[in-house]
């Protein structure tokens, strides 16, 4: 018997964890650009802030996009509810609230993550210490995920944890593409300017896929290839297609215990169908931006419908 509040807590716990990991990855990708090309640093940082949807909040606190300000805002400024520290604290709070739904391994991994990061982010992060901090965040995320996979029963609680993870991941990947879509516009290529190597590398780096892309595509970066990889490639664990497949699978499992069909399953099916069999050339021709906006909106509706279908709230 899973309480609605427990489903809610698990779903959001894993959304928060996933988002914190993605935020760290974005900062890592930004750092790379800032190090290699100081000229476009500010531009890169601003697109990162825009990816997490915090431009206004950021500019209200900082005059411009400087390393110190951005990193502080993204990692440890508690007035920003989506900074890594806030997200980890929220995830841990949720974990406490659903403590009985977690194995002690998952709880202790989450609690330890919070303790270690609280310590690591006590003081402002410098150029020097950033790589270490980012690596800690990555490792701890892997630790929590490992505990989840290694110790949790494959029951409905697990489904809600996974739904949170993949819904958040799909949303994050979509947002990364949305902010960077202009780099992939065919017109850019058509006018003869070669695609900006560093730019596309940043996109791949933001989803930890710079090597797997090369591996699958024999090192030939091109806009269509990258868009296809992130949207449609079912082998790539952060692609839209992969996330949708996982969402669908977990919703089907939950559906089997319901007397009536769940509207959320239909929404997930529609979302999956909107990607299936699509030719990436058509997507780019019709407009990548609109396509992604549509996906982001579908993801939002799906999340809300899951909360309703499974009685997250009274």
């Amino acid at each position, binding site marked *: *018997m*899973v*309480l*609605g*509040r427990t*489903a809610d807590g698990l779903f959001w716990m894993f959304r928060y964890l996933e988002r914190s990991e993605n935020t760290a990855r974005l900062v890592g990708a930004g750092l790379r650009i800032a190090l290699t090309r100081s000229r476009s640093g500010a531009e890169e940082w601003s697109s990162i802030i825009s990816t997490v949807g915090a431009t206004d909040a950021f500019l209200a606190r900082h005059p411009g996009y400087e390393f110190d300000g951005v990193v502080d805002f993204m990692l440890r400024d508690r007035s920003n509810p989506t900074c890594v520290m806030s997200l980890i604290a929220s995830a841990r*709070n949720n974990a*406490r*609230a659903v*403590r*009985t739904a977690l194995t*002690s391994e998952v*709880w*202790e991994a989450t*609690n*330890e993550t919070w*303790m270690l990061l609280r310590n690591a982010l006590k003081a402002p992060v410098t150029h020097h210490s950033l790589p270490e901090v980012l690596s800690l965040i990555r490792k701890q995320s892997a630790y929590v995920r490992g505990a989840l996979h290694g110790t949790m029963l494959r029951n*409905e609680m697990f489904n809600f944890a996974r739904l949170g993870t993949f819904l958040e991941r799909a949303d994050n990947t979509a947002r990364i593409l949305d902010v960077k879509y202009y780099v992939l516009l065919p017109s850019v290529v058509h006018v003869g300017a070669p695609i900006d190597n560093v730019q596309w590398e940043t996109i791949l780096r933001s989803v930890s896929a710079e090597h797997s892309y090369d591996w699958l595509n024999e090192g030939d970066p091109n806009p269509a290839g990258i868009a296809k990889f992130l949207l449609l490639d079912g082998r790539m664990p952060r692609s839209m297609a992969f996330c949708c497949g996982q969402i669908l699978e977990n919703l089907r499992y*939950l559906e089997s*215990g*319901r007397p009536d069909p769940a509207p959320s399953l239909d929404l997930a099916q529609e979302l999956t169908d909107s990607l299936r069999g699509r030719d990436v050339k058509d997507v780019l021709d019709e407009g990548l931006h609109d396509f992604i906006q549509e996906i982001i909106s579908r993801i939002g509706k799906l999340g809300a419908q899951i909360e309703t279908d*499974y*009685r997250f709230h*009274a």
Partner: protein
Amino acid sequence: MDKEGIPFDEMFMASGGIRRPYSDYHQWLEDQHARRLQQKSSEADALFRSVGVTFNVYGDKDADERLIPFDIVPRIISAAEWSKLTRGIEQRIRAINSFLHDIYHRQEIIRAGTLPAKLVTGNSAFLPQMIGVTPPGNVYTHIVGTDIIRTGESEFLVLEDNARTPSGVSYMLQNRETMLQMFPDLFSAVNVRPVSDYPRHLRRCLSDCPPERCEGRPVIGVLTPGIHNSAYFEHAFLADQMGAELLEGQDLRVADGRIAMRTIRGYVPVDVLYRRVDDDFLDPLNFRPDSLLGVAGILDVYRAGGVTLVNAPGTGVADDKAIYSYIPDIIRFYTGEAPLLGNVPTWRCSEPDHLAYALDNLSELVVKEIHGSGGYGMLVGPAASKQELAEFRQLLSSRPENYIAQPTMCLSTVPIFARSGLAPRHVDLRPFVLVSPDRIHISPGGLTRVALKEGSLVVNSSQGGGTKDTWVLED
């Protein structure tokens, strides 16, 4: 108590010899290196933190989560001492349950003139809604934590009855777990009775009293005020260990005369609620209307046999400090026996001659609020400043009926492992008792609280107290 104020030490005799229950442990201790123990002692802290055994301190915003310090030297009780204690506790708890039944029914104890009516009916913990109601199995206090102090070789006294929602049992379990992890060899050197079956006993105790409308195996839940409550860790821990639902008021509502919890598949009835929410907050329809922690209408469902509440509403009347002073009479009245465990002498300030005595001897007495707990709002005369004494003099004079006074008891000491080695500190003991219709189970040992500050007599965790693993030796 020793007139000179030299406390009874449970490990060392005045001659320096080792008392029997500690002899095996002491032998083991002799073989340990001080540095290793020091290291283990700090390991224990890290262990507690990562498991998340923390508590929240009311009124302390900066440190929202704290550890209760754990001391690695166990408190040891012999089999004979323990069996004496348990007989006394059982007797006391049977009498308290008879008393609760009586005051909510015929009130014979008042008719007999043994207890003044105003102490019962004028008591804020007395619930008129419970008059004429018999709880399932006729059990009122399913879960009790009787606070015991020791003042000499064979002098054990009850300090408090805690018949509402005693906390601390998770520390009893976690302390043992920690000791087993740190010193596995110790437990082959000394035969200690296990406590790890407590959650099983608790579950059985809760299942033993299903409500009338329960069908089949009772569904059990722990009702918590939520993650901000100081004892939240314990609520989650017990629910987890029992395999019970951990519920908040927002998960519950009244449906078809039952209490139902909101699951992902709809509302499902709960049969037994181990509620860690005080009476006042339990039901905004019947008690405090501003409470967000309870369930509107739950008391009516309870009275109609739709749910079992553990402990029953209205048990607080048995453990306030004014009734406490009558417990020996209560035991005699309901059991016809002499009390096996004594009380600490208590002056009820509501009585003029008692008040006069208290005011005259304030600097030697401990003064407590009738409904106080957790070491808040109390005065320890010998340790108090002139100003605190003056404040309490004022409080006592203006609201005497709100206070009792007791002599400052010289609690026994057990050594702690301090930087400089073993050092005696004052302790008390809270055994945990489970009451079923046909039996009473007392976990061997309980929670030993220790005042870590040298000479201090206040053991409450909220006032800087720590805990120890508590051993009852096998016969």
